[in-house]
């Protein structure tokens, strides 16, 4: 209990919130990394998944990429990029490693969502004379939206969690508070930092769940 109350003291002392190593700055870095990487991964994964899903090809590819992604430790990729020539360009190793890990869930969920669209509806749309792109944008994507958004949610939460690991390799973000705590042998700071990161991850998860609840019926899907 003593550690917990010291951690609370650490969290509530104003000095720990300001400055370059302060909580606000680290939170900003964490948010920046998460948002940039989520946007980049969506830009890369979603068009590919939607087109593959529309054509009905490459399913094995989408699923296998996801499985391989799980087997490769983020930390290893981050350090490998850091030691390669890319390592000399600021936060690029972190961003690349994070994008690599956000792409698989996005790809798989979007592909599975596209393939799950009722084929009768697709045939009906074709019968009405819709072109391929019309079918994709006006029929398939809206119907696949719940699963696509689930993929975005999984990717976002995974990014928040993985951005922490960047700190192990000297990057920014909330993980820095934890690693700094380890270096100072200050258990209260480690626990306080961990609580902050956990709270941030849970808030992101909750925001997505609430957004999904509030969204119109057709975007939610029947499964809820």
């Amino acid at each position, binding site marked *: 209990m003593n550690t917990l109350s010291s951690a609370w003291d650490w969290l509530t002392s104003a000095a720990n919130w300001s400055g370059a190593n302060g909580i606000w700055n680290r939170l900003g870095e964490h948010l920046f990394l998460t948002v940039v990487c989520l946007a980049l991964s969506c830009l890369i994964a979603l068009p590919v998944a939607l087109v593959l899903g529309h054509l009905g090809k490459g399913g094995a590819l989408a699923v296998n990429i996801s499985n391989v992604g799980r*087997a490769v430790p983020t930390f290893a990729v981050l350090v490998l990029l850091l030691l390669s020539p890319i390592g000399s360009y600021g936060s690029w190793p972190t961003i690349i490693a994070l994008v690599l890990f956000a792409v698989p869930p996005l790809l798989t969920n979007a592909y599975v969502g596209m393939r799950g669209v009722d084929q009768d509806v697709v045939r009906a749309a074709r019968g009405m004379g819709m072109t391929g792109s019309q079918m994709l944008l006006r029929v398939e994507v809206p119907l696949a939206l719940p699963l696509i958004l689930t993929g975005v949610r999984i990717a976002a939460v995974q990014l928040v969690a993985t951005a922490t690991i960047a700190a192990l390799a000297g990057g920014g973000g909330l993980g820095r508070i934890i690693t700094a705590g380890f270096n100072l042998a200050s258990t209260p700071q480690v626990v306080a930092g961990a609580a902050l990161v956990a709270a941030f991850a849970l808030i992101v998860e909750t925001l997505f769940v609430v957004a999904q609840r509030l969204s119109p019926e057709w975007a939610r899907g029947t499964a809820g």
Partner: protein
Amino acid sequence: MTAPPDDCLARNEWICGEYLSTRSEILLDAVLQHLQLTLVAVLIGVVLAVPFAVAARRWNWAAGPVLGLTTILYTVPSLAMFSLLLPVYGLSASLVVAGLVLYSLTLLVRNILAGLRAVPEETRQAARGMGYGPIRLLLAVELPLALPAAMAGLRIATVSAISLVTIGAIVGFGGLGNLIYSGMNTYFKAQVLTASVLCVIIAVVADLLLLLIQRLLTPWTRGQNA
């Protein structure tokens, strides 16, 4: 004065046979620690997950809290999880194992529960009609039929655990992660690459091994898959 040896270690190359031959003991120790941490964590995870899943299946009111709690645990980032457990376990291997157990619980409970729920009602009624009691029904009918789904969860949990062990390097118990961490600090390229590749190899081999075990345990599904 003798000239420094001009081998791949001195040149700090990514791929280096010298590294493999001179540091084979360190590598072996790291691999063993990696395997040990994963194995213990996944075994404890399975032992805990089965009663949770069975309880959630039997009593409907238990399903919500069990799934909710395990999902929340899964959302907590790994570095944070290891750190939050620090006051409880201190800097020890149990800290890493405890963190990994909490992660594998989500995947295992979900999949075992899905497997149990997929057992057809007629099958259960037939077993009851043959005089099976609730325990025998669970052990001889429900759990075996839930095995394919449970094994799928076990495979994902194991592969994830193998890659998560590396984060344990923050407390000094990360198996191959330790080598990656120290290699990063000293810019030792061969060590980082070798340890990373070994991690992936372990994950792939473990996955294939579990797939093989699944095939051996569920001979009745083989005809359908072929």
